[in-house]
């Protein structure tokens, strides 16, 4: 069974494929090729939603992407729940489940409609006046906690799904010579002529079927073919070309720099049984050499009182439902117009047997061919007239009309009807042109903004450029397709019969009426419930620029971005202010043209693919041995190794104690590593690090300190000299890419004379730190006879050798203060080397320790961590490392800045140690430090705590801090104020364990 209002034949629907669907739980039927809107209209269903603010019953205004009212939620189950879809774009499929929004308990009876009764309170600036004001008066909290959330809840769109999105989304980059946006007559002609040249052409259209306005046309004949047959033949020819890509259901939503266009292609939403392994949507990022915009025009509503009742729609929408879908949108229609194109709709509807009750033309006269044809067809036309009100609640039942006489309306008359078609004229869709930063020019004659000079390589053709005659559009399209690729233009004339030539003119603003202007609601922005009087009020309250009027009234700020409302809002403001439209300005068109799903933007960048996870070669071993991991940049680092029943505190204490007592193994593979090679390698390091490297012998290491040009510490690490022209540089884990870029920058741009090559080797080497008094005992059996005695291999030396036959760089370095080695082996052998060392360590119960124990042990020795104890304002002297600065070097990055007055000023913050008076108290990292145990509000902070731990070895807490003039305050007691009271602590040197440093040299 098909809807009662379905025509027996006609329309671009597949009558052999009937489908069933539900709307708000009630079953209906339709055909493949229908939209949800057209199928519901075929059953006489006009009530589809409730308005945003006043909860007024709303129907279908338009037939395409500009629809502001008929927003629905489609529920496919299993978390596939999409709100705020335009019913005019939802394609019908078997089993579709759609629901209305913003109503409770039901669409026909909505409690929220009480808002209409209090509507005088909800006018322009309502949000500003009420949400801001009462905060400053007594009881404001009650307002903010109770009333505001209730009001915000009542004003809303559909609800988002609370489940994770189960679908996936694809991303694609594409390049082409010509991208054509829009597949109406202009776009088809342009794509065809561009494709004939052999250029790569992409043609996209938001609709499932190409053809644009030709699909609504039962009248025109092009080159001897009916318009839609011509379109079908043209599309078929395009599809057969290998250089043409056709993208239906694809919205060009954003125009970005340098001819990059964002397209959103809907792949599965129209299918009854989509394969869920297939992507739901695809985001195209198309870089086009030339862009042809053939985006058409959008019909304007007329702003008359109560113009929002279900059953009042745009004239072109009425024609689309009739011709494209074979549905009569009503049975008795009143047509209100200020433009000739509505006469075509009236003629088509009359031919289909719809009764034309009256055509009410705002204009005094019209000599257009269409109005003449309507007259000749005997349609009842009343000129110089307008609608002043409508009746009906969930469906329009009648209108009151009258003659316009200046600002008044006389000779009022009531007409019964069940459909009102309105047409204020046409607004060219210049959204994408404007997004491309092209300047718009106001055309007085057509009441429209038209594309001016393009800012990018691009051309606008057809209705979006203000051209409305079909023959002219086809000619322009053909010409544009050639011209954009700089081919000699050969004009082609298309033989068009039945060309409804016209302009975009018509009317903008509010139509006159005889009623109390403070009482009537004549809607401008249907989606945000903005009326003509709201805009008038805004101008009375002093708003002059449309950008301000927009924000104050919220006109044009809904999800439809004012597609049907912008020009009428401008017209009203212009009339109220007595100023021309261009002097009031035009609001900015922003991406996206229509809403795009978050999933489409996210693409594959979600879950495990959101960011790469970096794991060391030893990760699997650590995971199998109870490691908890922490994120350091993208790396997963073993944080601590928990044995049965141990909490973090116990595990860290054990790891520290056993490492200092016997030995510990630590995975240091994440350290950044850069191979610096070349005859000038030492000189390069001289200029990049504070230290001097010239005299560092082969086989020796040195701690290097790197500054930025402003003189502040940016990184540190041990550098070993492998050969005279080869250094093994290490960096902090997080700083590796930054240091590499910093080095490349200076090498390429400041010191291009130096013969040096830089290679990141971070992922090539696995690094295992073997630390503790028995470290040598662990390592010795595995290094294939290499002499690692203290005599041959003292602290800060290195040897190149083999580890059980595998190439090895062995450093004698320590970040714990114990005897220590760092074993570098190729990453592929990292796990095997670790397991071999672990087997040796098992002989005397050595431990594996994680980053937390590493932090504690280095703090016990006062070794800084760049980025924790320093923050980008710390100089080498502040850090107590003036010894690392080669003062005789003529230049190094940051040297000149170290002499700046601020960097040598007294009382700079210096790194010190802190010992709390109560040894059990572990300070909060980041806590402020003051001199007064009971500081008044606003007391100047002397510094802050940078590192703080409990040291199991010392049996007490330790901390590091930066404090003004810190090294001059040794022994002084300062205070760390906390909510529970001040904590007192003594300033000490930042070394807590093995003050003489003898353990290093074991």
């Amino acid at each position, binding site marked *: 069974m098909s809807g009662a209002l379905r025509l027996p034949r006609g329309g671009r629907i597949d009558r052999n494929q009937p489908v069933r669907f539900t709307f708000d739980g009630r079953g209906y039927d339709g055909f493949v090729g229908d939209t949800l809107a057209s199928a519901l209209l075929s059953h006489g269903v006009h009530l589809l939603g409730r308005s945003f603010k006043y909860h007024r019953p709303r129907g279908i205004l338009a037939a395409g992407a500009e629809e502001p009212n008929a927003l629905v939620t489609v529920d496919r189950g299993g978390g596939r729940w999409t709100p705020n879809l335009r019913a005019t774009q939802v394609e019908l499929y078997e089993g579709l489940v759609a629901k209305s929004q913003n109503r409770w308990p039901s669409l026909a009876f909505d409690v929220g409609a009480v808002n209409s009764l209090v509507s005088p309170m909800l006018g322009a600036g309502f949000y500003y006046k009420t949400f801001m004001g009462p905060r400053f008066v007594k009881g404001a909290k009650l307002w903010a906690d109770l009333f505001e959330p209730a009001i915000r809840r009542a004003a809303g769109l559909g609800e988002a799904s609370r489940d994770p999105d189960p679908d996936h989304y694809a991303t694609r980059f594409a390049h082409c010579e010509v991208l054509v946006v829009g597949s109406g007559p202009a776009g088809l002609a342009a794509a065809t002529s561009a494709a004939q040249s052999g250029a790569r052409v992409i043609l996209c259209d938001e609709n499932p079927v190409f053809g644009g306005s030709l699909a609504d046309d039962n009248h025109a004949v092009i080159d001897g073919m009916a318009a839609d047959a011509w379109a079908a033949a043209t599309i078929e020819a395009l599809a057969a070309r290998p250089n043409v890509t056709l993208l239906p259901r694809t919205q060009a939503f954003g125009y970005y*720099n*340098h001819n990059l266009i964002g397209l959103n292609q809907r792949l599965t939403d129209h299918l009854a049984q989509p394969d869920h392994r297939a992507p739901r949507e695809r985001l195209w990022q198309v*870089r086009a050499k030339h862009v042809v915009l053939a985006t058409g025009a959008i019909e304007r509503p007329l702003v008359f009182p109560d113009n929002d009742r279900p059953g009042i729609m745009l004239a072109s929408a009425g024609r689309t439902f009739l011709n494209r879908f074979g549905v009569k949108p009503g049975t008795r229609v009143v047509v209100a117009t200020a433009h000739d194109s509505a006469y075509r709709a009236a003629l088509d509807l009359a031919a289909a047997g719809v009764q034309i009750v009256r055509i009410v033309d705002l204009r005094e006269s019209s000599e257009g061919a269409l109005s003449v044809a309507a007259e000749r067809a005997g349609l009842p036309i009343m000129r110089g007239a307008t609608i002043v009100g409508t009746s009906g609640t969930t469906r329009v039942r009648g209108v009151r009309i009258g003659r316009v006489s200046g600002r008044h309306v006389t000779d009022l008359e009531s007409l019964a009807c069940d459909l009102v078609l309105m047409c204020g004229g046409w607004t060219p869709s210049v959204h994408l042109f404007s997004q491309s930063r092209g300047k718009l020019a106001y055309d007085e004659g057509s009441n429209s903004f038209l594309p001016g000079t393009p800012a990018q390589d691009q051309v606008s053709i057809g209705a979006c450029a203000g051209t409305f005659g079909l023959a002219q559009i086809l000619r322009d399209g053909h010409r544009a397709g050639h011209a954009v690729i700089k081919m000699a233009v050969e004009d082609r004339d298309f033989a068009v019969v039945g060309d409804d030539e016209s302009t975009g003119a018509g009317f903008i603003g509010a139509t006159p009426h005889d009623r109390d202007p403070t009482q009537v609601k004549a809607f401008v922005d249907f989606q945000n419930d903005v009326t003509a009087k709201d805009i008038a009020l805004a101008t009375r309250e002093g708003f002059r620029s449309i950008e301000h009027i927009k924000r104050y009234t919220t006109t044009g700020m809904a999800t439809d971005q004012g597609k049907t409302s912008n020009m009428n809002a401008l017209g009203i403001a212009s009339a109220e202010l007595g100023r021309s439209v261009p002097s009031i300005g035009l609001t900015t068109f922003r991406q996206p043209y229509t809403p795009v799903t978050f999933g489409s933007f996210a693409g594959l960048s979600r879950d495990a693919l959101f960011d790469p996870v970096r794991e060391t070669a030893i990760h699997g071993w650590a995971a199998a041995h109870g490691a908890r991991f922490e994120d350091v940049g993208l790396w997963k680092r073993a944080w601590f190794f928990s044995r049965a029943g141990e909490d973090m505190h116990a595990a860290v204490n054990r790891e520290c104690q056993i490492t200092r007592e016997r030995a510990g193994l630590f995975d240091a593979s994440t350290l950044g590593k850069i191979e610096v090679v070349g005859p000038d390698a030492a000189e390069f390091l001289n200029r990049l690090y504070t230290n001097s490297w010239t005299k560092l012998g082969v086989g020796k290491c040195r701690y290097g300190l790197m500054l930025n040009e402003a003189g502040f510490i940016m990184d540190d690490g041990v550098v070993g000299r492998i050969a005279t022209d080869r250094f093994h540089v290490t960096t902090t884990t997080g700083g590796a890419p930054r240091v590499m870029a910093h080095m490349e920058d200076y090498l*390429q*741009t400041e010191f291009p004379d130096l013969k040096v090559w830089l290679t990141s080797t971070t992922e090539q080497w696995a690094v295992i730190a073997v630390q503790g008094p028995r470290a040598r005992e662990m390592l010795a059996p595995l290094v294939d006879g290499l002499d690692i005695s203290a005599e041959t291999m003292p602290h800060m030396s290195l040897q190149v050798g083999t580890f059980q036959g595998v190439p090895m760089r062995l450093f004698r370095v320590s970040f714990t203060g114990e005897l220590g080695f760092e074993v570098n082996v190729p990453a592929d052998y990292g796990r095997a080397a670790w397991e071999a060392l672990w087997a040796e360590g098992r002989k005397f119960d050595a431990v594996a320790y994680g980053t937390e124990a590493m932090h504690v042990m280095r703090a016990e020795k006062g070794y800084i961590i760049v980025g924790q104890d320093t923050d980008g304002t710390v100089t080498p002297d502040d850090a107590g490392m003036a010894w690392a600065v080669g003062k005789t070097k003529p230049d190094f990055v940051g040297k*000149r800045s170290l002499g*700046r*007055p601020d960097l040598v000023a007294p009382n700079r913050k210096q790194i010190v140690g802190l010992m709390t008076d109560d040894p059990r108290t572990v300070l909060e990292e980041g806590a402020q430090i003051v001199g007064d145990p009971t500081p008044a509000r606003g007391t100047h902070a002397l510094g802050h705590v940078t590192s703080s731990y409990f040291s199991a070895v010392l049996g007490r807490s330790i901390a590091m801090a930066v404090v003004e003039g810190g090294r001059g305050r040794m022994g002084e007691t300062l205070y760390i104020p906390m909510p529970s009271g001040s904590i007192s602590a003594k300033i000490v040197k930042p070394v807590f364990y093995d003050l003489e440093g003898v353990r290093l040299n074991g």
Partner: protein
Amino acid sequence: MLLIPCPYCGPRSELEFKHAGEAHITREPQVADDQAWGEFLYTRTNPKGIIAERWRHTSGCGRFFNCLRDTVSDNILATYKSGEPRPSLETSGEPSR
């Protein structure tokens, strides 16, 4: 998103590049005047109009190079190798987009 003509690799998407600040800032560490050195460190022109700026083709050849860009239109007027003088726009030929 910009389309940046790398002088070594040709036009590539902005995704492959990192911006590296204003170009032609001369480093003269021997300068005695603290004020002048402070300006070298911290003061940039930030023009409305054409700026010479540095980019690095991080996901490509890794090279730093210079670029003349109009900060109003975002059109790129020229790109050239580090160390080369800033081209005069009359002779830089067709603006590249």
